[in-house]
């Protein structure tokens, strides 16, 4: 009662604070909805996203961050659907991966011409606006170790084409499939490696350094190129289009929030390639915190006054177990929040799945002719990779918690429906037949005989679904739903093993705990005669 009273008293104050803050500072922010700033899942994109966010915050805007939201396809769809408002994109990517346009060689080689073309087409086709470029290009860089370069005498991509039958490539899945990636390289240069391994961005450089692959794709501003002393091969036929970085926003957002657009445009032409490589190196190689690096640079550029944007601590990169433990301890509050969010996602998806799949299983038992096709259909859903399923959700449901819940729910349906159907179908046929012959109604047979006997099988299905859901929920972070996947996604992008583990270990632990708790429930719902058998242990 007292608490409620206090809430009511303080509510107007809170509202005043929330409503007034942007107005006081800028005089033009008109909505309480935060500006949603997102990025693709790699270090530079994180950094630019953070710089956008801090810059906007310094001018009084409320910002929601969705760093590492997803690759081009996901980020682009999220922007179009209005789920996010801005993310950093590259003109070359827009040209090739989104527009699928091919320009004449003279135009394609000219960065300004490409920018005008992409800007015009995006406005017309998608209602999206490219803000003026940030000042650097981040094109693809095909890299080899110094040793490989010396041994095969490699300097250009034409050299690589000559030697490619002797070399194994480790490329990101993205690069392998794109026409401005391996497909085009093979066509234009005749590059045909002996083998091509799809590698996650986080492990590419390690794989190259360890000699597991000979050639990798990177970005020309990658900090890791310098760390591993790699040779970038010259694009002597100008195959790669210009990749100028710029903020990409929705046109209607630009019209509604001219102040925010003006703020973001402050960064235009401020970041050159040298600067970007230095910043990336701090994040990727030195392990500095993205927020710190962003704040430092914004301060150095004079866009934010010193001291106003001070985030986080620079992190030490101790590799010892004690170092990891203290790292986890230092992040305990964050991890607790992420764990709670993770559990919320799992609990809601699982509960919804139980509420639908158990009645569905019972219904199918009554109509067995359609049972196998329906359950088989649910089974097919299981074979869709989680990341693909999450991507399908974006045009329908945007990004965030809702599409993640729907995807997790779809995954949980199969084991529960299957367990219910076969559990009820196979429940002691003699007992069911006798109960029928003695005058029980179908509902009585279900409630008295079949369901109690099927309970352990149903619970086994629920347990399986729960463990699957705990695992799949880590991928929800890719579409901005949060949870323990957040440090995993960020760690993958930043090649930070410790950060990956800080999400992966709690997630694994959570799976064990959830399974253990449900094992107790399973024992509790076991039919009476089995329970006694269990206690007595025969």
């Amino acid at each position: 009662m007292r608490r409620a009273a206090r809430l009511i008293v303080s509510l107007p104050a809170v509202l005043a604070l929330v409503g007034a803050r942007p107005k006081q500072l800028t005089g033009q922010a008109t909505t309480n909805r935060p500006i949603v700033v997102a990025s693709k899942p790699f270090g530079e994109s994180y950094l630019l996203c953070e710089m956008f966010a801090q810059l906007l915050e310094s001018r009084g805007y409320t910002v929601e961050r969705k760093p590492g939201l997803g690759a081009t396809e996901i980020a682009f769809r999220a922007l179009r659907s209005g789920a996010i408002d801005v993310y950093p994109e590259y003109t070359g990517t827009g040209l090739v991966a989104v527009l699928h346009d091919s320009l004449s060689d003279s135009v394609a080689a000219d960065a300004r011409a490409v920018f005008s073309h992409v800007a015009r087409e995006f406005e017309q086709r998608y209602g999206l606006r490219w803000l003026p470029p940030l000042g650097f290009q981040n094109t693809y860089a095909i890299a080899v170790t110094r040793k490989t370069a010396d041994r095969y005498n490699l300097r250009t991509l034409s050299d690589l084409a000559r030697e490619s039958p002797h070399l194994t490539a480790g490329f990101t899945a993205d690069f392998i499939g794109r026409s401005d990636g391996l497909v085009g390289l093979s066509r234009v240069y005749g590059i045909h490696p002996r083998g091509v391994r799809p590698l996650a961005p986080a492990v590419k450089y390690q794989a190259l350094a360890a000699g597991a692959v000979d050639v990798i794709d990177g970005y020309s501003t990658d900090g890791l190129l310098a760390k591993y002393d790699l040779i970038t091969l010259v694009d002597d036929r100008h195959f790669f289009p210009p990749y100028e970085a710029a903020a990409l926003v929705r046109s209607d957002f630009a019209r509604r929030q001219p102040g925010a657009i003006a703020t973001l445009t402050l960064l235009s032409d401020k970041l050159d390639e040298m600067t970007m490589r230095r910043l990336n190196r701090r994040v990727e190689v030195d392990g500095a915190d993205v927020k710190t690096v962003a704040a430092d640079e914004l301060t150095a550029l004079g866009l934010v006054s010193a001291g106003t944007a001070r985030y986080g601590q620079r992190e030490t990169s101790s590799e010892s177990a004690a170092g990891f433990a203290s790292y986890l301890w230092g992040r305990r509050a964050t991890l607790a929040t992420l764990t709670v969010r993770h559990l919320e996602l799992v609990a809601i998806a699982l509960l919804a799945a139980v509420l639908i799949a158990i009645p569905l299983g019972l219904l199918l038992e009554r109509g067995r002719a359609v049972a196998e096709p329906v359950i088989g259909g649910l089974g097919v859903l299981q074979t869709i990779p989680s990341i693909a399923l999450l991507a399908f959700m974006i045009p329908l449901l945007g990004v965030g918690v809702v599409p993640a819940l729907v995807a997790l729910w779809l995954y949980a349906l199969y084991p529960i429906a299957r367990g219910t159907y076969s559990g009820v179908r196979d429940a002691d046929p003699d007992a069911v037949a006798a109960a029928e012959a003695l005058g029980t109604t179908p509902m009585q047979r279900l409630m008295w005989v079949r369901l109690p006997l099927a309970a352990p099988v149903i619970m086994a299905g629920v347990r399986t679904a729960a463990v699957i859901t705990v695992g799949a929920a880590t991928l929800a972070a890719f579409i901005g739903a949060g949870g323990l996947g957040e440090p995993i996604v960020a760690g993958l992008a930043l090649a930070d093993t410790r950060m990956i583990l800080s999400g992966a270990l709690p997630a694994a632990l959570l799976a064990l705990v959830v399974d253990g708790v449900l094992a107790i429930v399973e024992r509790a719902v076991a039919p009476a005669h089995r329970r006694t058998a269990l206690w007595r242990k025969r």
Partner: protein
Amino acid sequence: MPSSLVARNVFQRFGNVVALDDVSIDVAAGSATALVGESGSGKTTLLRCFNRLTEPERGEVLVGDRDVRGQDVIPLRRGIGYVQQHGGLIPHWRVLRNVALVPTLLSATDADAKAGDALELVGLPADQFGSRFPHELSGGQRQRVALARSVAAKPDVILLDEPFGALDAISRADLQTSFDQLRRQLNVTTLLVTHDLAEAARLADDVVVMRSGKIEQRGPMRRLVSAPATEYVARLIEQARASLEGLLA
């Protein structure tokens, strides 16, 4: 007064197989009839017509002079005792609750007392066996419980489908004796399916020999032995002679 059982010109097919081909039998109120024959002869199908587990395509089936088709199936079944080969006890219910099933369905206020009485009749006192689970009993005891369950609500008809078929010889003989006493004591009309001629001779007043959905011969076992109507009946009797001799002496 127990009910009689009558089937007239009953015909039933499963796919292309004729299970009952124009079969007629009648069981006088309070008497016992055994249906014998090999697997697939149609004896179980005929038995199941009386509680509408099988709905024949043609013909009339009467219990206590009333056509079963005109009746609601649920109360019909609650009024007829039923025992199957594998007792079909509900495994997570204790013995007393299993036996109280039909009285409970009929909303009897003293369902547990009725179940206790029935258990007493089959030689399993409730205070000793009532709180056990089926899996804690022997096979013979489980069939006794199934028998108790079928008579707990005092039905005037009882249908038995190979009730002792899965038991060892000693349990089987014990149970046959118990059942014979029980049905006379309760004065219940009995229809029994068995492939064991000795069992039929011991428990039934009349025996019906079935083959391929038709009746080969019906009458007291004594008459079947002395005057088999068909060669099939004669062969059946010949095979079972050793076990029948003591009974008919």
